[in-house]
């Protein structure tokens, strides 16, 4: 799980061009969306969906499904752990 969280942080940082967010500051429990958190938007959700398919073989039908799972890196990691095909 530790390694998965590390991998996900790197993958998300790269896919979403989060240049100014260092790995140390990237809190896996911080909400990814909304004002208080990292502040991702609808295109970011779609990029995470692509990322999950590319690296873990998980296919999500739409961004609505995504938003529920994408609360934080931790919740994404848990979902990936349970559903990964790669």
């Amino acid at each position, binding site marked *: 799980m530790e390694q998965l969280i590390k991998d996900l942080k790197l993958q998300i940082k790269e*896919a*979403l*061009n*989060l*240049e*100014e*967010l260092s790995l140390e500051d990237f809190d896996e429990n911080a909400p990814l969306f909304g004002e208080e958190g990292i502040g991702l*938007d*609808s*295109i*970011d959700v*779609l*990029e995470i*969906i*692509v990322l999950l*398919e*590319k690296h873990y073989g998980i296919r999500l039908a*739409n*961004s609505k499904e995504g938003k529920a799972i994408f609360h934080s890196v931790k919740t994404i990691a848990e979902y990936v752990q349970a559903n990964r095909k790669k």
Partner: protein
Amino acid sequence: MISAISTNIISPLGFTTEENYQAVLSGRSALRRYDEYPPLKGGCAKAEPFAASLFSEEQRAALSLDGYTFFEAIAIRSACEALAQTSLDTSSPRVVLLLSTTKGDIGVYPSDAAQRIARALGVSTTPIVVCNACVSGLSAQLLADYLLSADLYDYAIVVGAEVQSKFIVAGFQSLKAVSDEPCRPFDIERTGLNLGEAAATIIFKGQTPSNSPLKGEKQSSTVNSLPLREGWGASGGLAGAWYLIAAAARNDAFHIVSPSPQGDGCYKAIEAVMAGRDKSQLATVCVHGTATLFNDQMESKAIERAGLTDIPLSALKGYYGHTMGAAGVLETILTMRATDDGLVLPSKGFTELGVSGKVSISSKSRRSSKTSFLKLLSGFGGCNVAALFSRGKGQGARNKSRSLIKKHTISLSSKDGKSLTDIYKQEVGDYPKFYKMDILTRLAFLAAELLKKESLPIEGEAWKGSPLILFNHSSSIVSDRQFLTTISDDNLFPSPSVFVYTLPNITAGEVAIRHHINCETSFYILPKRDEALMQQILEATLSATGATSALSGWVDAKSETSFECELSIYEMNNEEVATAL
């Protein structure tokens, strides 16, 4: 005010306006489901299923032209068919070609295609490509209005054309915006848009102060009494031509892809056009109606806010899909034709209302005796356009002639040797979205930031009301290449964040969001950096829209290491200029 003197539509439903109209009347559509990318260009990989309206193999063979790509061929053929109904001398310096397309041929500079098309038509002036995402088809008609009203030309050949490709389909699929069934505009069960291909042409004529033959017409013709075309106005003859009475473009300044949920830009565009006009004179509002969850909902809110609840809507993408650069031209022509017949076309694909705005939309034909209509379009980059068309002259606004000067200018170039990221860190630093932008957008964004700093103090309202007009030659070629790497057959993971930047007008959209620019944002592609033509277009735009300042310039990137930008704040030239006109 300009008038439409002839039209053409080439689509999978037919090769003339009349064939298309009759097909729509009989409820036909070419929308069908595809399970793989072929017959789309560039495709071999198995695809997510999608529904689209594409030309058949037989149609492609019939429409092809030796020495031209299919995209160029349908644009040329459409313009030729429209021209054949007139006696225009296309070689006149008073004739201009405006080409509306979002992607043209992938990998081809749009101006190269436009110049080949212009040459094939015998047009001698510089063609202008209007590349303003999905609103391009109306933006091109607005541009025709600006240019003709400024007396720069007498005729504008407005051609909207789009062919589909794996590039475009995969791109929209990465945004989860595509349905695998025929689309259902405004419907409660709608699941997304369908893509389509078509070419459509409207030839516009400007007004002349006298009755003397317009330059640009072959001398052998009679000027003011154009004979009835077969099928045009078949319901009882031409009682005056169709006029573009008024039009307005407004930016949401909300998000580069998602529309403002309350339809701010769409509403403002409608209000700007309909201010002081009697809404009850509208036969219909022909909506954008892509059948995505967000667009239709937004549009319905804007229509309700604008007090158009009782006006019958027509949504035409259930017949053609979303023909992108062609949509604004094609859908306008069909609505003209239907309105001539006293008909409001049924919105194919609609059954039960699935939007919260109070609107009047139907899957059945309706009748109206009114002789004007509103056409709406919205598109990526926060663009919204509303255009009012009327049979017979209406009240148009008087244009004030504008002469502009550059008040402040910022230049950025790869030749300076400074990295854009370094400039960002030094001069801005508070906008992490910068890192998501492609090179073209970073360029425009930074130039605008530096411009704002240099020209401080600027009252908060000033930039809101300044049209943002950008030009380039290379379109979004850098992002195009990058997106292609995400859709190779053996590594097919189309990137949504790269795809959105494969429309050059997104650069204007990002600047609009940052600086709350609500008025018109437009993107034009020229064969080269032609300062004189750019100035003419800008002055014509301000003359027609009444704005007194503008943000405009050249923003071009050929690669990550070869780019140039010159962005200026323009203001009105207050000095008396003696003219010898």
